[in-house]
C-alpha cells in the first residue's frame, strides 16, 4: 500500500541541488549524498528512488516546493528551482497554471492545449508534460496531448498516478 502524503499535490517540483548544497541527508529509508546519488525509498515500488514527496529522475531528487517538505521518512527544504538540464524552469508536476494546486483546471488546460485551443508557455508545457508515466514517474515527451490530460485528470480527482 503506497502512502499518500499531502505534499504530493503541491505545484511545481523543485530540484534539490545536491552537489551544490554538499549535503548528505538520510533517514532510515532514504538517503541522498552530495554526489547526487539517490537511494532508498519508502516503498517497494520506488524503483527509481521516488519518495512520496518527490520524484527522483536519474540521479537527481525533485521535491515539491515549500519551505519544508516533510514525510515520515524524509525532511528537506526548498533550496533552488532549476530544470533537469540545469537552467531555470519547472518540472513535470501536472500543475500547468502553477497555482500550487493540481486540479481540474489543469486537466482542462491540458485538453485545450492538446487540441490546439491554447498555446502553453515553456514553463507551463514542462509542468503539464507528465506523460508518459513510467513506474509512477512522470517522464514527459515534450508534447501535451491526451496522455498528459488523463494523468492530470486522475490526479485532480484524487486517483493519483
Amino acid at each position, binding site marked *: 500500500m503506497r502512502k499518500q502524503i499531502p505534499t504530493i499535490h503541491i505545484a511545481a517540483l523543485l530540484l534539490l541541488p545536491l552537489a551544490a548544497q554538499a549535503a548528505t541527508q538520510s533517514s532510515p529509508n532514504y538517503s541522498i549524498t552530495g554526489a547526487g546519488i539517490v537511494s532508498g525509498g519508502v516503498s517497494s*515500488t520506488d524503483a527509481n528512488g521516488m519518495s512520496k514527496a518527490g520524484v527522483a529522475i536519474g540521479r537527481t531528487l525533485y521535491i515539491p516546493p515549500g519551505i519544508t517538505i516533510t514525510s515520515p521518512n524524509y525532511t528537506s527544504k526548498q533550496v533552488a528551482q532549476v530544470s533537469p538540464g540545469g537552467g531555470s524552469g519547472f518540472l513535470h508536476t501536472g500543475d500547468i497554471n502553477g497555482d500550487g494546486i493540481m486540479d*481540474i483546471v489543469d*486537466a*482542462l488546460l*491540458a*485538453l*485545450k492545449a*492538446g*487540441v*490546439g*485551443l491554447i498555446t502553453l508557455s515553456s514553463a507551463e508545457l514542462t509542468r503539464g508534460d507528465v*506523460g*508518459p*508515466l*513510467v*513506474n*509512477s514517474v512522470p517522464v514527459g515527451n515534450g508534447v501535451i*496531448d*491526451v*496522455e498528459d*490530460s*488523463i*494523468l492530470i*485528470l*486522475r490526479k485532480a*480527482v484524487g*486517483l493519483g*498516478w
Partner: protein
Amino acid sequence: MLLAGTVALSLSACGDGGGTSTDVLAPGTYKLTFSAISTARLPVAISGVDVAVKFPVGLSVSTNSGGSGQIVYASITPGSAIQTTSLVYGNYSASTRTAYLSMATTQTSYRSGQFMNLLFTVASGTSVTKNDIFLLNATYPKYKVVGLDEVTHSTVTMSGTVKTMLGVER
C-alpha cells in the same frame, strides 16, 4: 449494442468520401458518435483519445466564435460508454473543416463503445452523405488512444490497436 440507434452505418476510420443518394443527409442537426473498437483484448482500459474528424462543405460545427475555435460545450459530450468523471474538448478549424477532439476519463473499465458525441448541422441546399465525414486517423499524427496500467503505474499507448468508428444519429 453499442451503435444501436444509429441511422447510418458506422463509417470507416479512414473513409474516402462518396456515398449513395440514399445516404444524403437532410438539413438539420445530427449527432456524430465516436466509438472505440478493437479486435484484440486491450492490455488496459482506455483512458483518453485524441482524434480529428474532417467535415465536408455543407456541414458545420458550432463554435464559441462562430468560426474557428473552441467547440461550444453543448455540442460535445462524453459518449454513452463513459459513466465516470470525464472531460471532452474540441477545437474546430473552419479553414480546414477539421475538428480536433480530445476525451479524458477516470473510468477504469472502458474498453469499447461510444466515448464521445459531437453535434453538427447540415445546411440547406447541400447534398452531403454520411460517408463524406471521415476521421483522420491515418493522416492525423496526433491520433492517440492511451490508457494507464494500474499495476505498473505506467501509461500505455494503444493507437495502433484501437480504431475509432463514426456513427450518425438524428
